């Protein structure tokens, strides 16, 4: 049956309020009288805090209290990752963080906090305190492979050689397979860089006492998990906390970690429940929240003359920064994807997650796949070139075939999704003509076009618990409110859920109201949004709950119409007798009657939890066309098209918005974004929005999103993940397009002027007569 609301570009439910400026984010809700907290950060990359002299700071007018790492009576180490908890200790995240530590492990670690009446006094106090900390400085290490070597500084005793985890995969026998004659070996190192989420609303939370409990209002993706972690961090019952999540100004994974909520709650408690607000300045967001894992790959493939893979090996070193946060999950996801994207019988793969004295890496849109996609697709391009095959044809030949089944995750590729996406994208951008047009150019300014794809799945089954709960309450006029554990952070989860409920109950979307701001005291349990699970996961509990409610509605309808339930249905807000199509009463009349009847009055409501035991492949591709100005070492992105198979699209307008956002993050990842540290001092160099080159309006061409809708059989409404996939294929597509234009295929990100100048000089594309002697392999 054709859908009435699903698949429609329904306007975002909160769009009007946001366009009027009356939407309330955390800072907008906080009372003016709140005290301001500023965190005191370590100014050494590795060390021990011997003493912090707080006397001078405490004298500054306006300073209310100064806390230091020595004020913790008991040290409660806690995990910060936004993962569902597990009763099996082997599955629990590593609990290695303190709200304030006397053992800073990176420049920007939290060693104290100031509470003041306004931000000026707080900043004055911080500047004074920073000069009155006595450290025992220790040597530090910033690179992942360096950190694994003997003699490198050890961050955590329980993890020798700073290796948080090391996993391997083996299939068939590489040793044997490479003995086959006539094989071509292709090898490459691929380097991805640390980047940051840069959501425009910095992390912010405030806390105050209420009865014998503490309320924490915070900008987060995972309110229920935040409550659990605050309890763990403070060594108190989890029920002693109530977490409220107002509208959020972007998260992208940074707010899928528990950041400063525990410290803020603890300070409020120390001050007898006073209202305290902790808002993180942009400079601290860059280094003291979470960043994306920088991963270095070494991939080798042995190709048969017909362009198929005989054997493949992969090694990946994943720089995790100073604390575990999400731990090995990011590296593991990349490794797990390697044998699936380009299946091969003989594969050896291993990956390490390594501690370094750098900002903590956590979840960021793609969760390891943008890095892996860059390595896999650069390597695939290199293999295609080695075999003198058209890159697109090479991919069509080697990519995961239809019907592929992955035993561990029970995922299955039900449709010819790769080819469908390639065809659609090639047609939109005019790929084939442009490939011909741009063959062997010679001028200073050259153009190139290329395509890349990626592997992605939806949600985290079977690696972790996948559950979603929903409550729907019907009002006397037949309209409903619904509550969900899945949080709205700008991706449109509320609107998608409303469309699903409208479809299931057959009432207009205007009668479906989200209770958007989750409150752990009221909202049914849910682990929040991450891993592109939003629409997919909530679909299960929403449909199940809506069906339960419909059952109650039809039973009530039976009471007032005498017709048997199986002859009744709910269509366009009316109770209809299916045998002859007659409309018997409106849903509003029914709801009113059922509530106020003196014979069996009942409030029509339903609530249920659904544990999801399935996953879904969500693939797609990106076509990028670039113009390279070789002398100026600049790349201009002319056109870009992403085609995604995310199953049935619930809301095309919002879905294309998600693709645009992912493309934008991918463009920055490819061309300009990179967090840098001073090798000598371990100090971050560009932790502000001026020196960290986020793409501006003038760095983007028009963005194009297209969809191939293969209904996902395992999904409640045929949907699959779409939040993260668009960020994955863009960087490799741009790299390959630059290669197509200049013949130079660069294995390092970002492809900024610095990188291009060095590579163009080495390759002789740039020859500065005055630099004849110096040109050559400059240090990577």
């Amino acid at each position, binding site marked *: 049956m054709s859908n009435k609301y699903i698949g429609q570009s329904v306007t975002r439910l909160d769009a009007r309020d946001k366009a009027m400026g009356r939407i309330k984010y955390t800072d907008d809700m906080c009372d003016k009288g709140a005290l301001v907290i500023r965190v005191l950060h370590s100014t050494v990359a590795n060390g021990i805090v011997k003493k912090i002299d707080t006397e001078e700071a405490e004298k500054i007018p306006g300073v209310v209290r100064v806390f230091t790492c020595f004020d913790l009576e008991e040290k409660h180490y806690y995990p910060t990752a936004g993962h569902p908890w597990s009763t099996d200790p082997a599955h629990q995240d590593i609990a290695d963080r303190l709200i304030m530590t006397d053992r800073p492990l990176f420049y920007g670690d939290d060693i104290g906090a100031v509470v003041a009446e306004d931000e000026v006094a707080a900043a004055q106090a911080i*500047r004074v305190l920073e000069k009155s900390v006595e450290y025992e400085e220790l040597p530090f290490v910033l690179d992942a492979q360096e950190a694994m070597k003997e003699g490198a500084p050890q961050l955590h005793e329980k993890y020798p050689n700073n290796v948080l985890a090391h996993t391997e995969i083996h299939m068939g026998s590489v040793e044997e397979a490479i003995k086959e004659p006539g094989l071509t070996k292709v090898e490459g190192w691929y380097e991805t860089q640390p980047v940051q989420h840069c959501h425009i609303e910095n992390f912010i939370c405030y806390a105050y006492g209420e009865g014998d409990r503490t309320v924490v209002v915070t900008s987060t993706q995972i309110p229920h998990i935040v409550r659990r972690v605050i309890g763990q961090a403070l060594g108190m019952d989890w029920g002693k906390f109530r977490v409220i999540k107002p509208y959020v100004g972007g998260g992208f994974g940074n707010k899928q970690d528990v950041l400063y909520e525990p410290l803020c709650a603890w300070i409020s408690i120390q001050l007898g429940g006073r209202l305290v607000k902790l808002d993180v300045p942009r400079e601290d967001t860059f280094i003291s929240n979470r960043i994306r894992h920088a991963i270095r790959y070494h991939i080798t493939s042995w190709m048969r003359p017909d362009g198929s893979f005989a054997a493949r090996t992969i090694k990946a070193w994943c720089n995790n920064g100073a604390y575990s946060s999400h731990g090995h999950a990011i590296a593991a996801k990349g490794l797990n994807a390697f044998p699936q994207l380009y299946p091969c019988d003989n594969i050896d793969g291993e990956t390490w997650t390594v501690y370094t004295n750098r900002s903590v890496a956590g979840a960021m849109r793609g969760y390891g796949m943008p890095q892996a996609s860059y390595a896999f697709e650069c390597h695939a391009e290199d293999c295609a070139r080695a075999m003198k095959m058209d890159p697109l044809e090479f991919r069509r030949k080697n990519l995961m075939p239809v019907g592929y089944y992955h035993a561990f995750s029970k995922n299955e590729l039900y449709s010819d999704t790769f080819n469908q996406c390639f065809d659609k994208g090639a047609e939109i951008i005019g790929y084939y003509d442009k490939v011909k047009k741009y063959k062997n150019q010679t001028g200073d300014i050259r153009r190139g076009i290329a395509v890349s794809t990626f592997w992605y799945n939806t949600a985290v089954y079977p690696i972790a618990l996948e559950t979603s709960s929903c409550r729907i309450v019907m009002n006397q006029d037949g309209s409903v409110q619904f509550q969900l554990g899945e949080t709205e952070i700008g991706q449109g989860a509320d609107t998608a859920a409303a469309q699903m409920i409208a479809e299931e109950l057959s009432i207009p979307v205007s009668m479906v109201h989200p209770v958007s701001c989750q409150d752990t005291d009221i909202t049914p349990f849910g682990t929040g949004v991450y891993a592109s699970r939003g629409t997919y996961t909530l679909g299960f509990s929403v449909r199940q709950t809506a069906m339960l409610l419909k059952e109650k509605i039809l039973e009530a309808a039976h009471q007032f119409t005498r017709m048997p339930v199986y002859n009744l249905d709910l269509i366009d807000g009316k109770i209809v007798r299916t045998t002859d199509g007659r409309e018997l009463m409106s849903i509003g009349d029914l709801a009113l009657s059922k509530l106020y009847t003196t014979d069996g009055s009942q409030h029509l409501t339903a609530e249920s939890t659904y544990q999801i035991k399935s996953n879904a492949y969500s693939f797609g591709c990106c076509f990028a066309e670039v113009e390279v100005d070789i002398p100026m070492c600049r790349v201009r992105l002319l056109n870009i098209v992403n085609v995604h198979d995310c199953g049935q699209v619930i809301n095309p307008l919002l879905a294309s918005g998600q693709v645009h956002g992912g493309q934008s993050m991918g463009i920055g990842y490819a061309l300009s974004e990179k967090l840098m540290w001073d090798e000598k001092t371990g100090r971050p160099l560009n932790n502000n929005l*001026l020196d960290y080159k986020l793409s501006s*309006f*003038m*760095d983007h061409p028009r963005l194009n999103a297209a969809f191939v809708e293969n209904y996902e059989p395992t999904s409640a409404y045929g949907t699959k993940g779409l939040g993260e996939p668009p960020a994955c294929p863009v960087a490799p597509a741009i790299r390959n397009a630059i290669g197509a234009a200049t013949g130079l295929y660069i294995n390092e990100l970002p492809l900024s*002027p610095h990188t291009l*100048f060095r590579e163009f*000089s080495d390759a002789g594309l740039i020859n*500065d*007569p005055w630099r004849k002697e110096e040109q050559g392999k400059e240090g990577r």
Partner: protein
Amino acid sequence: MYDMKALYEAESVQDAVRLRLEHPDAQILAGGSDVLVQIREGRRAGAEFISIYMLDELRGVSIDEEENIRIGSLTSFSHITKDPIIQKYINVLGEAVDMVGGPQIRAIGTIGGNTCNGVTSADSASTLMAWDAVIELTGSEGTRRVPIKDFYIKAKVVDIRPDEIQTAILIPKESYENCFGHYIKYSMRNALDIATTGCSVNAVLSDDKKRFERVRIGYGVASPIPIRAYSAEEFIKGKEINEENIKEFALTVLQDVNPRDSWRAGKALRQHISVVMAERALKECVKLAGGEADE
């Protein structure tokens, strides 16, 4: 909220001068797009400030009796770009300041502030340097005029006396008469960015448009303060307009620029870009002046 010990608001230029004398260590606040940010970062926190933002008398562009183009020091970047006199005689300055930050920064930022904070990356500085601008300062003893190349002393230090404020920037007639300029800003992104290197070239061609009568070239971020590449200017003076001379002109700039090596950009990259920009900017000037720069 900003950490200021005190804020004094000047109502007139004389008032500003009086406040400068009364509060010797108070710093001047014009548009504030740099100073306010440095207060928040801590560098200027807790200082006293004299705000001259309200002095409308220092805004506007005009031609004075000596036919200098007179730009009031508090004229905002966006107003300079849109000003008819600028567009007619020294459009390159309007283009240069139109590359500062974003539209909102250009609405608040002033050309006086941009030059007074003595930063080599200031987008207006390299062009003003290339057009031999003259800085007019007003103090208790009246006004004083300083050529811009003497105004910059060293990084972040300019020739402004304790009782003075900058009141105008003048472009002499012989500097702008049938002279055509082009500015290239090399930065890592196309908006909201500081120049990695800035190159401003202007040229006066011979009447038959075949030779270079005068060429001036200024650089930002090629040394601690904005500079002129005099050797290149000397080389090209009077030379015929052709590819070979232009290329040689571009190479000669290396004798004048000495960019430093930093994490923001390597020395080799800055040198390379300086040469490429010199060539391209000069070719653009020739085209603007109606000459033939053979492609």
